[in-house]
């Protein structure tokens, strides 16, 4: 990396080299059968140079091809793409507990045994077909730049998805457990999954109406994507966001607080710096319904004349860092999950929504298919709905919040949220 940086510095005013090395192992169990075992050992290298205020960018996966990387980055300069920012000089950043060395000793046999254990638990309590996907991942990231930044991050994670499938349907419910280390999935998580499944086996066909919707963590991206889009510095800069001039204004119900916390190392993949080497810190986006902040990367921070918030992340190996709320949370409220369900007079527990990318995201509109939805009447789960859609606008829906769950829902980093007055169309 150092050689590449030196070569890049000779042909530019600023240079940055980014390397990510990933080792990943996954085990797939389908209906009790060990179906797939895959491993990956992948490296990606990115090079950015800034010369005369213009950006050069290239990516590859092998330092022996330094010349090609440099050549491609110089070729990128031909486009005259603006780079009105300086790479940071990030020193003495806090260290977080992100890596468990024992992850390197976990093998597929260990994961397979845990999948077996989970399968036995769920199959003894449900009539479901059961799929389990377990993955260990360790990643090393290093960023060097011409301002003497030399940052290193090492992280580990273990993730297991437990899916209960309704026989004959292939529709399903699932829960995800994530940790920095390999450990048994907590019993309450699988217990809840088996309970909700058993209550939702009968198929019901209520009439279309405006209803209460309990957005579960697996369906909350319906709302989260629209919040992220509206508070992203690019949307603000280009004036697409309906929130462009609404800092310090009330946009949601006062129960709603949205924040990003990359430093919380209780959870996997905490970060001290983003993919541009900018220091990360917790950032409140919405506090008690009031819009507080937007988030950016170096480019849009400069364009909006605001401090860099440390949210420049790569979505893919081939992309430059882009503003991303990578550690987004909704602050828990005051009611237990049981109380949320009990509060539903007529509504749906939306376990999973389909087609989140459809609809006018910039405007906050959503119109999503119900992948798995549990119909509730007078606080009792009656059964499961099919062939149905939920539609609304987040600026209306999040102003009709009834309650928010009092903790992050089991296995996730989001609470469930109960909202009123959402349109439901059912065949």
């Amino acid at each position: 990396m150092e050689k590449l940086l030196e070569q890049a510095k000779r042909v530019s005013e600023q240079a940055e080299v980014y390397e990510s090395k990933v080792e990943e192992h996954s085990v797939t169990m389908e209906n009790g059968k060990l179906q797939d075992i895959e491993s990956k050992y992948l490296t990606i290298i990115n090079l950015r140079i800034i010369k005369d205020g213009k950006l050069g960018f290239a990516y590859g996966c092998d330092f022996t091809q330094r010349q090609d990387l440099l050549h491609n980055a110089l070729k990128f300069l031909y486009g005259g793409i603006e780079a009105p920012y300086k790479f940071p000089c990030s020193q003495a950043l806090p260290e977080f507990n992100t890596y468990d060395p024992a992850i390197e000793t976990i093998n597929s046999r260990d994961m397979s045994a845990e999948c077996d254990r989970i399968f036995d638990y769920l199959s003894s309590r449900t009539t479901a077909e059961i799929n389990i996907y377990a993955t260990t991942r360790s990643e090393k990231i290093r960023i060097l730049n011409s301002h003497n930044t030399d940052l290193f991050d090492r992280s580990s994670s273990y993730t297991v998805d437990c899916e209960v499938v309704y026989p004959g349907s292939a529709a399903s419910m699932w829960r995800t457990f994530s940790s920095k280390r390999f450990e048994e999935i907590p019993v309450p998580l699988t217990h809840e999954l088996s309970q909700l499944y058993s209550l939702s086996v009968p198929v019901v066909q209520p009439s279309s109406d405006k209803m209460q919707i309990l957005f579960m963590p697996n369906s909350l991206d319906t709302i989260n994507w629209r919040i992220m889009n509206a508070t992203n510095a690019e949307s603000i800069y280009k004036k697409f966001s309906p929130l462009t001039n609404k800092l310090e204004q009330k946009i949601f119900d006062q129960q709603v607080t949205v924040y990003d916390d990359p430093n919380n190392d209780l959870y996997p993949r905490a970060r001290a710096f983003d993919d541009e080497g900018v220091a990360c810190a917790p950032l409140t986006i919405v506090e008690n319904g009031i819009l507080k902040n937007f988030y950016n990367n170096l480019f849009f921070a400069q364009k909006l004349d605001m401090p860099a918030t440390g949210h420049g992340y790569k979505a893919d190996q081939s992309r430059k860092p882009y503003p991303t709320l990578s550690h987004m949370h909704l602050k828990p409220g005051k009611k237990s999950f049981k109380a949320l369900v009990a509060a539903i007079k007529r509504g749906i527990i939306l376990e999973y929504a389909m087609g989140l990318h459809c609809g006018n995201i910039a405007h906050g509109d959503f119109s999503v298919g119900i992948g798995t939805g549990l119909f509730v009447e007078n606080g009792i789960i009656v059964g499961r709905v099919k062939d149905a859609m939920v539609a609304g606008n987040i600026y209306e829906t999040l102003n009709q919040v009834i309650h928010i769950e009092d903790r992050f829902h089991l296995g996730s980093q989001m609470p469930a949220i109960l909202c009123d007055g959402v349109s439901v169309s059912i065949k």
Partner: protein
Amino acid sequence: MMFETMQKILANVDCSYADLRYEEMKDEAILFKGPELTRIGSNSTSGYVVRVLKNGGLASVAFTNLKDAEKALLRATENALLMGSQRRKPVELARVKPVQGMYQPELKEDPRTISLSEKLDLIRTYNDIPLQHENIVTTITYYHELIREKYFINTEGSRLKEDMITTQLYAVIKSQDGTNIQDIAFAIGGSNGFSKIRHRESLFEQRSRVALDLLKAEPVSGGVYNCLLDPELAAVFTHEAFGHFSEADIIENLPALRAKMQRGAPIGSEKLSITDDATLTEHLGAYKYDDEGIPARPVALMTGGVLTGRLHSRRTAVEFDEPLSGHCIAQDYRYAPIVRMGTIFIEPGGHSFEHLLQDLGSGLYLIESNGGETSGENFTFGAQYGYHIKNGKLGKMIRDINISGNLYQSLKDITAIGKELVISEAGGCGKGQSNIHSCMGSPPVLIKNLVIGGV
């Protein structure tokens, strides 16, 4: 030279079968966001995927550095042994004859022979077209050219090199009037050369007009409607409603669903026939050999509403005791191959578009796709815009249209099929790993009782 390197890697593996795929990927991209160029240039990456079948277990490892080859083989072998020891039924692969060959697609203008500056000028010309209009506030115009040189060997003696050359232009045009923001997305391109990217000025003009018209369109009201789907939307419907369930690995371990999806089962309307054909070289979904070295072939998936075929890998073909189809594909060197659609389409029927409108009577005419998703028997797909239809006549324009369907019902609710098949130039499928080559087509299709979301 590369084949020799690959042979050396596999030389000492002790197993009943192994294969090794190596890919060099080169891409060239040009991206405009509004008038600003935000990306231009070329890059290359490469890597390997090895699969080992041993004692009835099959495992795979992907790696980018050659020095990790020994570690990868060891891991693949260990994992294959573990799988074999844990499965009641050993993994078997369908028997095939070894294949040797080198394949290059026939191209109408090889994009590698066209300079970056010429491409930039063309893309800038296209990008400028919508920006001339008042109320068009921005664009995304993204040209992406992907050259994949794929090498494949296995321990049965197969040895293949296939180049896949894809040129695609993806565009979004955004219009704004006060707080009302609308957009229209579209794509052009294919797997047979740069010529498909040229001479598309009129398309950009037409799309700009639609983006502006959308500002005056009304949001659709939620409800259940009879609908006429245009070819592009019907193509996505095919992919989401049925295509995924024709992939053998999706239903393989879902016994109740698999029992319903036996060949010979009546799944759809009698009028409905669906084919997957990755040998159509002029379309995005084309390839010669899949990533197990099996030649692609057309597969009649549904005939007159009856299930007649399925898409397979070597493993699932044995599992289902059905013929091989050549549909085991990986996104790139970072992934092991899985069963994927190639070019799936509804076969043409006999009706003119005018006849379909008359047949519809009153309902919705829905146009172009905004993507879709399948979750078990339920699926959703979005239309970019549409029109109310009353007494067979076009009425007001509508927007914000998302549609829900159900595998067991929606295919049976097809009442008529148009006669002109259109294969979409837009492709893509996000099953597990992305696949830009998965494409789809259809004639216009009349379906009753579709659930449309809306406030």
